[in-house]
């Protein structure tokens, strides 16, 4: 998994690629917690377009990130989910809990 950060006005976009699994999810968790708890970024957008697979530890890391965002009244937004990633979130009954948009424009503007 690779994470590249981009910064727009009060928005951080993480372009993530590869697999989010036991080996890599701690890196994503750390990046999200830093963004919300330390930097208090109002909106963090995750571009998951190049993520092939996410396991339970990846889902748990997203959940932790979401909780951290709510604690500082920020937003965590996901877009670009492929079928596999969407299915994993659906099975965990999390699709309606996360803010999920179709593309980057919506994720930044809405």
């Amino acid at each position, binding site marked *: 998994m690779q994470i590249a950060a981009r910064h727009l006005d009060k928005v951080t976009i993480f372009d993530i690629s590869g697999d989010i699994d036991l080996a890599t999810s701690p890196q994503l968790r750390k990046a999200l917690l830093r963004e919300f708890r330390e930097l208090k970024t109002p909106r963090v957008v995750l571009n998951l377009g190049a993520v092939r697979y996410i396991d339970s530890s990846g889902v*748990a890391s997203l959940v932790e990130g979401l909780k951290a965002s709510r604690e500082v009244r920020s937003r965590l937004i996901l877009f670009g989910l492929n079928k596999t990633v969407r299915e994993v979130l659906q099975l965990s009954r999390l699709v309606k809990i996360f803010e999920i948009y179709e593309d980057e424009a919506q994720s930044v503007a809405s």
Partner: protein
Amino acid sequence: MDQIDNALTQPEAMISLRNLRVSYGDSEILHGINFDVMPGETLVILGGSGSGKSTLLRTLVGLERPSSGEIWLKGKNIAAISSDEMNAIRKKIGMSFQGGALFGSMTVGENVALPLREHTKLEETTIEIILRLKLDQVGLAGFENYMPSQLSGGMKKRAAVARALAMDPEILFFDEPSAGLDPIIAAGVDQLILELKQAFHMTIIVVTHELASAFLIADRMVLIDKGNVVAIGSTEEMRSSTHPRVRQFLDRIAEPEVSQELDYLQMLTEEYRRPGR
């Protein structure tokens, strides 16, 4: 019935057994087993008491070493790998054994979290979310702080499945999933296996002697008798088979397993204690 080529493994198979032999001391239990399990398939291993089906399962998960032959799991022959390599493969497989095998001194949540605490470096907060996700998936949301002794038989089985799912296995093994459960609870466990298969596209291997359960959950079945594969095929192929041993097995009136017979004998013959003595 499937034709099995003894020499070649199917490259796309999740598990391939080739001429697998297992012995305890001088006595050979499995006499050259061959079959393949495809990704996403539920294969039920059927057999009576002493057929060798449980030995086969124990060998597949690496608890018994074969005396000869090959076990290809995700393209690696586990009959010939180091214990480090086997440990890496074990992370990809989940096991649910007879009786649930939960640790009685730990809460349900601690039981489910155990593989994650043992085998990963995940933060405790991440592990706690995962264990709750897994309990939710088996219908036990909110039971993380219960002790196993506070759960019914069916709930214990579900908790054991949640623990087997903790590491997101690609292959899930069940040993007699409905043993010791009443028919309604057992049907619930069958339903759970079907849900897991549909939701996660997992490869599932189930050892059982319960025919109703086997026909409900299987894509294909293997009948093992006296350490040999007698037949392998889809549920329809098995049902319409004219093979005498298959017919004998499928048409039998449910014969109790040996352990149940012993329990029954014990129940009939144990010393009667009159109230007040």
